């Protein structure tokens, strides 16, 4: 059996005795706690980029998408105009061809009638 020293117990009591904290200790601890609780700039979603950089990137992407859509709309409008022009050009071509053929037909008919000597002579168009 181990014999305990007589002064052990008083010494232990002395060591475990409640002591006053140094002046300002509580304030310093509370200040540190408050500091740790502040949000740190780790970046949105944890990708290491500050929020403002994310905002700029988002704006750029949005501008590119909007630009692309606008360009597509302009192309559609230009295409519609080009299509209308093609149809108009073919329509005028058709009507011009028809008018020329009517003239040729009329001219041929007059010529034929004059050759056959049918009735009154219809004057042909003046040749230059």
């Amino acid at each position, binding site marked *: 059996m181990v014999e305990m020293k007589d002064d052990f117990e008083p010494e232990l009591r002395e060591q475990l005795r409640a002591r006053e904290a140094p002046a300002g200790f509580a304030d310093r601890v509370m200040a540190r706690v408050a500091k740790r609780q502040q949000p740190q700039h780790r970046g949105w979603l944890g990708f290491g980029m500050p929020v403002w950089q994310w905002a700029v990137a988002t704006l750029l992407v949005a501008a590119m998408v909007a630009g692309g859509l606008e360009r597509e709309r302009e192309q559609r409008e230009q*295409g519609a105009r080009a*299509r209308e*022009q093609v149809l*108009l050009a073919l329509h005028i071509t*058709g009507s011009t*061809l028809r008018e020329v053929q009517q*003239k*040729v037909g009329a001219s041929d008919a007059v010529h034929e009638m004059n050759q056959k000597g049918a009735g009154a002579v219809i004057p042909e168009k003046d040749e*230059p």
Partner: protein
Amino acid sequence: MRASVRNAFWVGLAVAATAAGAWAQASSPFPVTLEKQLAERAANYTEVSLDKRMLDFASRFLNAKDSDQGQAKRIIEKLDGVYVRSYEFDKPGQYTTADLESVRRQFETPEWTELVKTRSRDGSDDADIYMKLVNGEAQGMFILDAEAKELDFVYISGPIRPEDLQDLSGNFGIPSDAYALSKKAKEKDQTKADEKTQKSADKTQKEGQP
């Protein structure tokens, strides 16, 4: 100094690009001065200039399932250009026979065959159809139709097959005998070639005689 040279280069490039674009758009098979004069005198006018690039672009927007648009798409895909000028005047006498001649002159080259020619004293009832034939194939068409208060020119550049004209019959107002016109052009071209050969043969024979 270097920056100013660089800036001048970019400005020059931009000006050149703009000028090239303007030239490409402005290029016309008809006399440009006359076009301007006619446009000034006209009550209404329509000018359509579609080069190969524009035709290709327009073709992408033509609906192949629509009958008119589908046919237009098939035709323009092969063409190099379509140029249409249509002027409507308030009163007669807004153009002269000389004006018409200056337009016709553009197409009076050996490769063009005059197919239809109707003439009137003051030109106000003239009509022309010319076809460009290369190795017997139609490679272009020019139509002129003059009325007292209306004047139309059409120039189609590129291969126009008779079948195309036949396909178009009834659509866009193109008459059903346009196919016959095209055939007539070929026959006329053949006659011209035969006459040329005959003349050449006659000349050779005459030169051979003592």
